[in-house]
């Protein structure tokens, strides 16, 4: 069946099973490959997107759940990497292999949207949903603190 929603400000209509996972619809039907597959089980956060402004594990989100709603992926966070979180990520040289970083950035942007000046504990608590095997955690904390300051 066909399900209509918004992605990065654009209306889309997708032919798929209603229980298809948003992650794979984004990656394979809409070619938005910035959203990553890491575990498929809600344990790593590589697939993090925003649905109506709240972060969501796209691997745990069924297509029917986003019908009529607005999804933002890393590609839609800013047109030119100018979101304060993206700028801070470059300034602190956060990414290593980079595979987890779309998800990290989407989680961080969600945090700062709701808590513009998070404490260190709030950062750690919020960001512990997202695994980074390269171990960029110290820099993620620094980048979020920088983004909070510079936003």
């Amino acid at each position, binding site marked *: 069946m066909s399900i209509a929603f918004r992605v990065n400000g654009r209306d889309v209509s997708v032919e798929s099973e209603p229980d298809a996972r948003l992650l794979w619809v984004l990656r*394979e039907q809409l070619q938005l*490959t910035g959203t990553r597959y890491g575990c498929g089980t809600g344990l790593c956060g590589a697939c993090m997107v925003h649905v109506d402004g709240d972060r969501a594990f796209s691997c745990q989100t069924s297509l029917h759940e986003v019908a009529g709603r607005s999804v933002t992926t890393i590609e839609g966070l800013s047109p030119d990497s100018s979101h304060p979180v993206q700028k801070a990520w470059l300034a602190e040289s956060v990414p290593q*292999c980079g595979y987890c970083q779309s998800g990290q950035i989407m989680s961080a942007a969600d945090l700062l949207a709701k808590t513009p000046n998070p404490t260190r504990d709030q950062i750690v608590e919020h960001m512990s949903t997202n695994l980074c095997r390269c171990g960029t955690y110290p820099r993620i904390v620094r980048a979020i603190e920088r983004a909070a300051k510079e936003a």
Partner: protein
Amino acid sequence: MTIFALGSGAAADSAPDASGLDRRMFMRGAGGLTFAVAIGLPALAAEARRVDLGPWVTLSTDGTITIRGPATEMGQGSRTSLPLIFAEEMDADWSKVRIVRAAPIDAVYGNPGFGGVMYTAGSSAVTGYYKALRQFGAQVRLVLLDNVARRWNVPASELTTEASTVVHAASGRRIGYGEIAAFAEMPAKAPEVRDADLKDPKTFRLIGKDVMRVELPTKVNGTADYAINVAFPGLLHGAVLRTPVPGDGPAAIDDSAAKAVRGFIRTVPLPYGVGVLADSTVAALAAKDALKVTWTRKAKGWGFDSEKGLEEFAAAARDPARPSKPWETAGGGAAALAACASVHEAEYRCDFAYHAQMEPLNAVASVAADGSACELWVGTQSQTMAVTAAATTLGIGPDKVTFHEHLLGGGFGRRGPRDMEFVVDAVLLSQAVKQPVKMVWSREDDIRNGRFHPLTAHHMKAGFDAAGQLVAWHHRKAADVVTEFQDPVRYQKAGQKDFIGMLGAELKTYGIPNRQVDQITMDSGMRTQALRGIGFGPNKWAVEVFIDELAILRGADPLAFRLDLLKGSPRAHAVVDKAGRMADWSRKREGRGLGVAYIDYSGTQIAGVVEVSVDRASGQIKLHDVWIALDCGVTVQPDNIVAQTEGCVVYGIGLALSERITMVDGEVQQSNFYDYLIPRMRDVPAIHVELIATPNHPTGVGQMATPVIAPAISNAVAALTGKRLRHMPMTPDRVLETMKA
């Protein structure tokens, strides 16, 4: 800071030139000059005339300098740091440099410090290429100077360079590299580079100054080009169910449930498993999960139980009658123990561990319908091994394989086995279906099919003389032979030495005169592989915990005990001393313990101190601070070294405390991040890294801090509680058991 985009793709940018260049010649390229400055690579002399010789650098008339990067990028930064070394000696304006991927040709781009192979592993990129790239860069600079000297009719010795500019101070003339490209003539013979032609490190403009890694911008906007993102029309999706135990294959396949999966296309029996093809990744993975396969069960590994196996390994390490292979012998070896006034022994163990790179293994292959050629899209630690694996599988020449290099979503050793089994998966599926196939492992596949950091048992003995000096050392390690499984080619070349498993067991810097390290080779039939820290992980676990126990036995402070043993190794002494001072070692903390560990990791000197507390109810070890002091010689990209070291520490914390693979009847018991626990942000303490820059040849940094962490934690727990943890990982149940004992 200028941001550089990657080239438009490996194939277009790095197609090797096939015009039969002599290795000492240069050619005029389309937009300027291309320098084929491959002089000095040891592998070249014999092979150069047999291979296409690709250039390292192209200089365009607009001043753009295109440098080929020979290392693959998995977050460690070599795609940037190697061309930067070249650019330094060429005296290039970094803002004009464009980095593209080198073509997969060992004879031109192979790592001189790694057997001449294009293999990004062993933290060997900078250390292996450093000298050669400096020479090549200097050679280009000399050619540019000669051309300008002739043009201006002045002696070359009166010319100097600034960033991408040749300067004649006497006449005040200046000319940019791009302008030189328009008229430069190539000498018939490339200039010899003497040491005096290399820059004085004091004048470095790039080495030692942080630049942004070239691919970084693509990693904050979703565009980074991992192979898992490859998509084009006609691409089918594949998955593979592989035998749990290596060496077997399917005996019977029931794919009736798989066929019912929407999007299923077909089943492909493979020698070692069963592949399925479908119209999407989800469908392929679901169909693979729906397969019912019985296995031939002929291979060695069936019946293997890792807990029982470890007991057998430990018994073998303990049993002096068990035959062993020598790894290191110094002085009188283990025989010196007999003359000691006192001898101490202890036993240490490590479980299997998994790489857990965030991008599960995958590859895209397109095999020609007649099987005569193949195109590959892969993130791999060795371009040439990937090409060879595909060529061997198809029985074609490597020149028939077109290779597209991609970023790696993590490597840690996993993307570097000689057989490149994940590439072969894609090749076989594409060959069967005569269409391009993207083959993806699920996270569960990635764990189930993992190639692990080996199970090890270490039996240690040390002897003191009557004066209380540590004079004799014997380390017997029982473990599978990692190198033979991971890389049979290098294993044979190395005279059947298991260097991947054994490195780090030798003690070069501690002043212990009589030493012997032996390997008792076990054969569990399980898959093993280098993992971040390779042999140093388990070996330094045993060494550094044992050293600590010896210090305490002698009533010595563990840090002072090490400093005393390291008297003859000033760089080693300096890092241990530095880490101690960073941690304020002698200050007592209420309810907290400090532990230290030190490693000479292939020349890189590194020491770490950790501060821990222990929750005695749950057995959970909590880390509060980690201090690392590291001397890797010349620091090519200092901030990146710090970043790598931070990452190493986080990785080491996981291996130390929670990461554990177990096997029952040869099958891996873990399946995803709920039962294989890698560190989250909340598990990570404050990490303090200080680099001691010395003028020594640069050595590796990509994995050096990882093996420091586990022994430092065990040592800190002992300092706090008086109880000794000797089995890694130090899971809460093991901690509780030890506290009770």
